[in-house]
């Protein structure tokens, strides 16, 4: 298991793909931060750092990238045929899946840290320029980042299971994006009571992007974790006897 986990980490760090996701996320978060702060409406000079609106850009975008990173874990291997040497080196498919969940979690955490660091590095000087009083609580900031990282870990696991179940990269990525960006919102409009338990809403609740209709952060964490477990379990079940050809 350890060897397979290290192999999966090596896979993550030896192609451009993961770095491209990180750079893309940093670019979006950076631009979003600039837009929110220079717009003026997003600046509250007396609020501490952890309550500044630019952080919402990080909290809303980063989970999506963690999901994509997780999806690619298996779809890349099916797409390029590298699943064959992977399973020849380690025919214990459950262990390969477990190692991929672990490596994707590490990748998700790296995305979360990268996005937070980028937004903070750009946001703080801009806020100071807007007359921000430069207050913060280390504990509250830690909680914001901690919840974000927990969300990226769960989203990356959802992605790994989804990619394994769907196998086809374009289908998995397009399906996930359509649901996250539009589908969930449309269904939520029709079924507002049920929508709180949808993965996107649960994820928002977990990272603290609370609107009145959402679950509490704790309940969001439990619901999102349930989706992650269901996704990985479905992938595991499909993988156990699936023919690789």
């Amino acid at each position, binding site marked *: 298991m350890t060897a397979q986990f290290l192999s999966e980490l*090596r*896979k993550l760090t030896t192609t451009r793909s993961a770095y491209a996701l990180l750079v893309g996320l940093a670019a979006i978060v950076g631009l979003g931060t600039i837009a929110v702060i220079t717009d003026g409406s997003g600046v509250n000079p007396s609020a501490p750092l952890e309550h500044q609106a630019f952080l919402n850009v990080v909290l809303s975008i980063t989970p999506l990238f963690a999901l994509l990173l997780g999806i690619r874990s298996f779809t890349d291997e099916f797409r*390029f*045929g590298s699943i064959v040497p992977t399973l*020849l080196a380690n025919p214990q498919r459950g262990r390969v899946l477990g190692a991929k969940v672990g490596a994707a979690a590490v990748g998700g955490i790296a995305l979360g840290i990268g996005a937070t660091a980028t937004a903070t590095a750009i946001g703080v000087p801009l806020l100071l320029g807007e007359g921000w009083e430069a207050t913060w609580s280390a504990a509250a900031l830690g909680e914001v980042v901690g919840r974000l990282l927990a969300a990226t870990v769960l989203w990356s696991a959802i992605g790994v299971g989804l990619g394994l179940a769907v196998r086809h990269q374009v289908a998995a990525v397009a399906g996930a994006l359509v649901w996250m960006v539009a589908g969930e919102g449309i269904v939520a409009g029709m079924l507002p009571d049920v929508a709180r338990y949808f993965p996107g809403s649960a994820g928002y609740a977990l990272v603290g992007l609370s609107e009145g209709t959402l679950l509490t952060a704790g309940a969001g964490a439990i619901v999102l974790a349930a989706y992650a477990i269901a996704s990985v379990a479905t992938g595991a079940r499909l993988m156990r006897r699936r023919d690789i050809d």
Partner: protein
Amino acid sequence: MDATLTGTPIASPAIAVRGVTKRYGGVTAVDDLTFEIRPGVVTGFLGPNGAGKTTTLRIVLGLVTPTEGSATILGLPYGSLDDPAGTVGAVLETQSFNPLRNGRNHLRTIATAARIPMARVDEVLEQVGLTAAARRNAGTYSLGMRQRLALGAALLGEPRILILDEPANGLDPQGIRWLRRFLRDFAARGNAVLVSSHVLTEMAELADEAIVIDRGRLVRQAPITELTRTPGDIVVRTPEPDALIAALRTNGIEVSANGDGALHVSGGDAARIGTLAFEACVPVFELSERHTTLEDVFLELTEEAPR
């Protein structure tokens, strides 16, 4: 020389396929197939495209689950091997790597998973002649280089059994010669080799044993030399066939007239037939040994039943 490639033969059979059937929906890809692979020889796995060779190899490697039957390596299913990479090396297809990862890193991901020391990666790159291209993305490799990368991956764990699916595809003549010598040496050290191919000319020089399958069924398992030994080896043309037939039969040589004006003689050699014809005063217009190619035998074996 690889340290573990000693001359001690591995246990026999190296690979055992027993009653394996694989159905995809209504299509039977492999049909009650049984055979064994011994160490010390190169076994050719022959059949036309679509005969079920690749499916069989994937079943042996645990990638595909058979509908019925079982396949074992040294007595165990692939998934139960303690050290799969150190037991079996397989080359299944050309494209089995992420094109955005360089060749060296591709091998390093496999080595890491199989607990193989990183130094072995550079050794293997040297062995398959990819050292200069090791840090280039594998997507830029030529077909031959891709094959050599796949072979490198198979050799990483210093396995005692090699399984290669159509390995000569994309290799240049030097590459094929190198591969042939490599596999012969490998087998001679007591290891087992199973090589599939639909190109038989290369098999005649490479393999010792042949397993011929068609439409998922075993057609023949025999030494290559035995496959090529068929009756009707010598063709004789003469204006006096009856006199020659009589002379040959008196001397215990089987002969048949096939209606094409020529006599087909088996169980004699050209010199003896010529001498007997001379002694019987029969003129001979043609006396030739028909060299039966592996292709002929193969076509004969696989085209008996209508498709």
